[in-house]
């Protein structure tokens, strides 16, 4: 408890039991995920799912699309976060498959409880989806999907998400090898005064 009760805890969800060794463990798998994503990108074929059944992909994508919704700017859906997650679950996050399977079942259960005629989370209205997710927003499953959605939205497009750099464009990040000063508003103003 002592070691956990820290800055780290402030920053991280303790619900998932993610360790800082996460990346180290999965490093070879991350390489594999990149290569996989690059291959399927280059093959020219439409991307297909390896882990998710199509219905499950729809459900998870709907959750991701509530975490980072679409508006006048692309959200998780347009950034193809679902492909990032699918690949993650086949490569560097293989051990999270069960969390998704279980989480999906629970989500169906909750959806049925609240909306007895339901035909799945993704078929509910946005307001109903938000209501459902608010009910589980402190669960390990929600935290995991949130984490993967953020990673898929903002990681290098080679991993299958952040399509057309949609996430980077939203936040105003560019990936370039060189920049020249001035870089931002305040240093531009500062240099003008000199």
């Amino acid at each position, binding site marked *: 408890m*002592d*070691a*956990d*009760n*820290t*800055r*780290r*805890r*402030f*920053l*991280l969800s303790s619900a998932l039991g*993610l*360790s*800082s*060794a*996460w*990346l*180290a*463990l999965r*490093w070879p798998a*991350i390489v594999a995920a990149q290569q996989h994503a690059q291959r399927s990108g280059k093959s020219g074929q439409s991307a297909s799912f390896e882990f998710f059944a199509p219905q499950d992909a729809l459900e998870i994508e709907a959750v991701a699309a*509530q*975490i*980072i*919704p679409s*508006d006048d*700017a692309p*959200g998780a859906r347009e950034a193809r976060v679902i492909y990032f997650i699918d690949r993650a679950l086949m490569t560097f996050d293989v051990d999270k498959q069960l969390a998704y399977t279980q989480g999906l079942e629970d989500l169906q259960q909750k959806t049925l409880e609240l909306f007895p005629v339901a035909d799945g989370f993704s078929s509910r209205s946005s307001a109903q989806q*938000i209501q459902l*997710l608010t009910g589980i*927003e402190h669960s390990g499953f929600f935290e995991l999907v*949130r*984490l993967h959605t*953020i*990673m898929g*939205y*903002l*990681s*290098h497009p*080679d*991993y299958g998400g952040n399509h057309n750099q949609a996430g980077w464009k*939203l*936040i*105003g*990040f560019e990936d*370039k*090898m*060189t*920049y*020249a*000063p*001035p*870089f*931002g*508003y*305040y*240093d531009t*103003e*500062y*240099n003008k005064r000199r």
Partner: protein
Amino acid sequence: MTKFEDKTAVDFVIVGAGGAGGVVAKELSTAGFQVVVLEQGPYLHEGDFIHDELKFKDVFDPPFIGQEVLTNDHTLQPNTFRKTAPDKAVLTSFAQYGRCVGGGTVHFTGNYWRFHEVDFLERSRWGAVEGTGLADWPITYDDLEPYYTKAEWELGISGLAGANPFDPPRSKPYPLPPLPIKSSGVLLERGARKLGWHAYPAPTAILSQPYRGRSACAHCGFCEFFGCEWGAKSSTLASVIPIAEKTGRCEIRPNSYVRKISTDTRGRVDGVLYFDPQKQEHFQKAKAVVVCANGAETPRLLLMSKSNLFPQGLANSSGLVGKFFMLDSGSLTLGTFEYPLNDFKSVRVTRVVQDFYDSDPKRGFYGGGGIDARFEFYPIGFALTGLSPDVPRWGAGFKKALKENFNRTVTVFSHTTCLPLESNNITLDPDTKDAWGLPALRVTYKSHADDFKTMNFFNDRSLELLDAAGALKKWAFPVEDAAATVHLMGTCRMGNDPKSSVVDKYHRAHDVPNLFMVDGSSFVTSGRNQPTCTIQALAYRAADQIVRMAKSGSIPA
């Protein structure tokens, strides 16, 4: 490429090719000695360092801690941690250090602060602090000054001499002008001026102009936690290690994990036992050994090097190997501003404030530090940890905050003193083993009350600074006991008395005439927690002396 035989005794084995080991390797090999450097991590190159947050940056760690591609891998080398000796130590990834050729200088931010004169004399100037081992160094700033200058010129440091009114005297300006100011630096300067403080251009181990055959910084923004793709960061990998290798007398042997320093019947070091990448054990013979394995691994290796002659661990007659462990205390505050800073570009830090460097009796407690401003995030890490606590964690509000704040956020980061306590230490875990079957590193650490007061004091100053700079909103990370550290100091402290220190003022082990420890472990006090510059100045000074002693035959093999 130079290759030495295990069975032939080389003049020196250096354990660790990091900030200190790289410097010592270059100095000893250019002075004509044969050197084998055993580095536990891989030999990576500029081409291996790419802009990929998921690959290099461990997003599940606090953003100021880092990744485990360039650093030690806690799945293979677990740490355990407890606050005090009676507690049960639990698994953590507490001690983080560079684990590749170049060590921590590959992925560090590049803050390159000299110590001030007072750092070497705090026990005399301030007096005793109860319950601590606060002590003067056996050397003064003046002793080290020529080597600070040497480090700055050999490695390539950018900065502006005379710009900081609190700077100690220097014999030479910086070799390179400061890097261009960024918006975070402008805001720090603006706030500081309003408060009557003094911001100055950050001394940085990144080239502002081409230097000695190396490229200047291209401002790509991937410095902290990443290796520099341009060779512009003045790591030992980019600067002095190539010079060492060119002598033909220095072999850098990567993926070589030293498990024991061996001694002969006379109590002298005669080589080291290490594992190759296939976990096969080898014995490299050497006439002398220089341990530059960092403030956590150096004491661990000494403690693992027990023998009949050294039952408490090698060079440990004082019982102080591993004791007085100090780490990177500080505080982290954030603010958002009206206009885009685009601070993801270029180097992290361009302005620093040291108005509160010295301890001040008026504050009522020991401690001081420095403050820098930066944007401490990459995109994923920002989304996970960079937004203010009142921002929704998902949905339209979350997306809006991401969009508005990524380029409008500044981190004000303070770096503060950490008192040396004997009860804070590195020991061998009796139960947990690493992937090679060696005892895991066990950290025992609890901050002194004055360290907490100092961190809180700096937290408050940082928030004032954000206000004065015109922040629309500001918040702070809680000031808490450390959960992890990247600055490892004090565990083989330097001193004149063999009873109260591990190495002498030239880094020679009091107990073993041909064994030297040169890294953060030699620190007597923490400085203001920007240790790299001083580690490297000490390495130049130690190497100078080792060369002199070796040439005059005063290092008995």
